[in-house]
């Protein structure tokens, strides 16, 4: 009985600690008012949120032949297939756009939402990128990459629409991707027609849970539930300047190239 109590405590503590300890520590100027979380406001996820560099992800489902081909061509810096920096073809190594959904799955140390008329803006600390999430009832485009003058161009961050599933859950669906970007830092691919769902659930004032699912039949044999991660309210509602600067990134790669060569 005693063991069960301890084990339950261990598991409970571990589950609570995973998201909480992955966050950045509270800056010293945090006000006491932010330390006690109040109830979640209704239909509002605005504000700055903090998270880990790389949230823990589920392994992908089996890939299609095309998906496997694209996956095999990637040489990531992260994950079980990681290579030294001189050997990678990760687009991010030269500061190419991170793209979506990678921006939701990697470098998630800071982001913010602002609700404005007809849309919600997501502001990403990494590279100071923004996403427009349309909330005016428009559908997702169905002609991305199609022939014809009215077709929409594929985009690194796709086309996004959002709506409230309930008073505390904001659901974003995105499609229409430029295929140059990876789905995540491990080199998992996604096609132009992938549909990515983000579900932001405001747990309380200080905690925002994000679940991400990729539905991409061209690449994955079934929908890929990628992750569930809890983000915390930023005590200081302000971004760092976290930029990937091409000249510095190239210098970094060239400086450490000798460290990754064969003996």
């Amino acid at each position, binding site marked *: 009985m005693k063991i069960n109590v301890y*084990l339950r405590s261990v598991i409970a503590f*571990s589950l609570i600690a995973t998201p909480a300890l992955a966050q950045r520590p509270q800056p010293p100027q945090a006000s006491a008012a932010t330390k006690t979380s109040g109830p979640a406001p209704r239909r509002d996820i605005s504000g700055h949120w903090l998270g880990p*560099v790389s949230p823990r992800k589920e392994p992908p489902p089996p890939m299609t032949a095309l998906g496997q081909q694209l996956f095999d061509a990637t040489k990531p810096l992260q994950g079980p297939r990681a290579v030294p920096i001189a050997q990678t073809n990760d687009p991010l190594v030269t500061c190419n756009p991170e793209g979506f959904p990678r921006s939701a799955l990697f470098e998630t140390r800071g982001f913010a939402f602002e609700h404005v008329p007809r849309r919600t803006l997501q502001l990403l600390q990494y590279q100071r990128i923004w996403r427009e999430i349309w909330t005016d009832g428009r559908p997702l485009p169905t002609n991305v990459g199609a022939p014809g003058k009215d077709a929409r161009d594929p985009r690194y961050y796709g086309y996004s629409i959002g709506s409230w599933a309930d008073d505390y859950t904001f659901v974003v669906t995105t499609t229409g991707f430029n295929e140059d970007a990876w789905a995540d830092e491990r080199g998992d691919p996604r096609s132009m027609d992938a549909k990515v769902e983000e579900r932001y659930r405001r747990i309380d004032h200080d905690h925002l849970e994000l679940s991400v699912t990729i539905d991409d039949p061209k690449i994955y044999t079934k929908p890929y539930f990628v992750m569930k991660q809890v983000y915390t309210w930023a005590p200081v509602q302000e971004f760092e300047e976290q930029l990937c600067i091409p000249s510095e990134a190239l210098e*970094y790669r060239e*400086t450490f190239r000798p460290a990754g060569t064969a003996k």
Partner: protein
Amino acid sequence: MRTRIVAFAFVITVTLTAAPGFAHHSDVAYDQAKRTTLKDAKVISYAWRNPHGIMVLDVKDETGEVVRWTLETGSPSSLMTDGWTKNSVVAGDVITVDANPARNGTKFGRMLRVTKADGTVLSWGERNRASQ
């Protein structure tokens, strides 16, 4: 029994909290099982920048010859998490550095910890690396 359970709790907790928040770039070039200590290293330059900082050091080897080492450090964001500031280490400082050395024997490494002349210790991601 209680001690074993507490130990188990610690392992589980550290394991679950280890992965996020640390690596931005690949660590495979560095031998994480090895720890090299560079004593009385003179800081030649330190670039506090993304994606990772670059710390260049001159260190005397066992024969007294000065050897140049180049270490990768965390990004400003990750180092600030561990209490660093832009001026924590500057050119001209004499410091002792623990690092994971390059697997191929070149004088490169990944900085783990700096001990300054006044005894101040600054680490990078050691909490996250605890279970590695």
